[in-house]
């Protein structure tokens, strides 16, 4: 099987097949990233297409020094932030939710469309909802670490931060998530 860099080189040479192979290799990961973010399949598909369009348009700039997946997720993250900005008409910030979960808006962050996950999959819907309550930076670190299984060194290189900063961010994000869960689900009592 050809590696990413070989596929990219062929795609840049105009090979449609190489491009499709590359896309198929990563579309599941990107699609689920988009799904976690948007909370509905229509928007996730739109966003995924936007990401791959951005990847294609910038393919010649990929230097092959970093991993393709890092580069891909940097574009994906940027597209996601762009989308959130367009939807909200103001920048993604660390937005807290009201204390009472009953006051949480259904469409906090990016809107939930007709194919809302809540109908199909309760656990995915709650993951989406909780992630929406985090800052973009916190969401990104959890995405890269938990879902993409990148190492802290890889994340550090991708975001131009130190590995220690990456670890601290991960820890803070997890703590914030835990606090939100307590407010929302009453899962387990404090140890």
């Amino acid at each position, binding site marked *: 099987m050809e590696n990413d860099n070989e596929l990219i080189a062929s795609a840049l040479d105009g090979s449609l097949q190489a491009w499709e192979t590359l896309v198929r290799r990563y579309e599941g990961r990107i699609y689920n990233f988009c799904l976690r973010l948007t909370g509905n399949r229509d928007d996730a598909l739109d966003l995924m297409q936007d990401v791959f369009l951005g990847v*294609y348009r910038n393919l010649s700039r990929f230097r092959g020094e970093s991993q393709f997946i890092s580069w891909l997720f940097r574009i994906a993250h940027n597209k996601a932030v762009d989308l959130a900005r367009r939807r909200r008409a103001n920048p993604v910030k660390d937005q807290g939710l009201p204390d009472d979960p009953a006051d949480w808006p259904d469409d906090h962050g990016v809107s939930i469309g007709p194919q809302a996950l809540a109908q199909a999959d309760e656990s995915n819907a709650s993951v989406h909802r909780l992630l929406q309550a985090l800052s973009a930076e916190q969401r990104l670190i959890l995405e890269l670490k938990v*879902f993409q299984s990148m190492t802290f060194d890889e994340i550090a290189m991708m975001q131009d931060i130190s590995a220690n900063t990456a670890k601290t961010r991960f820890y803070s994000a997890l703590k914030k998530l835990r606090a939100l869960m307590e407010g929302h689900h009453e899962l387990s009592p404090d140890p």
Partner: protein
Amino acid sequence: MSCHQTPDIVAEHFDTRLSPSARQRVQQHLAACADCRAELALLAPAQEMLLSWQHEPAPDWERSHAQSQPLAAPAHRPPLPGRHARLSWKDAGRWVPLAASLVLSVAVLTQTRLDVSEQGWQLSFGGDASNVSWPQLDAYMAAQASLQQQQNQQMLESALQQFGDNTADTLVQLVDWFEQQRELDIQRMEAGFQQLLDRDYQTVNSVQQLASYVQFQGDLP
């Protein structure tokens, strides 16, 4: 949390790609540190919650759509900010510190800073707009503006030499000439913006943001 290593230990504990030796170090610390053990127990449900995500396969889609339309204008591209067709002398004065070269240099500067950096420019365009460091941009603009003023002065002096005596007619000529220079400047800037947009879709928002910022500053009395 009274153990200063807790963030590290927690992060490394949940790191599925930790090296065996680092894993051993974490285990040893946990065996000896009740604080970190307690924090781990507290945070474990958060990690589990994330891992409860059910992967969905991507639906079928037109994968080569992007390639079949190379560099076509994407649907979401916002239009360039508008401007007045022709600047009056008064308005041109407002543009003086904001000439094309300056605006473009900022745009290019930010483009090279597409990756979020912890130092220098934090514009991180295409990224989180809350990182935009407006005070820094202000300072940069101010510094460039004074440079621009000097250049304008030189331009004016050479123009005066060219036009010779200072009659009303030549003054009008001079104003016209000056306006033309500014108009050209702005055209160059627009062409530059367009180039940036064509080249890198990711910077669209950023350049537009920058442009509206510049416009806003230009509109100040």
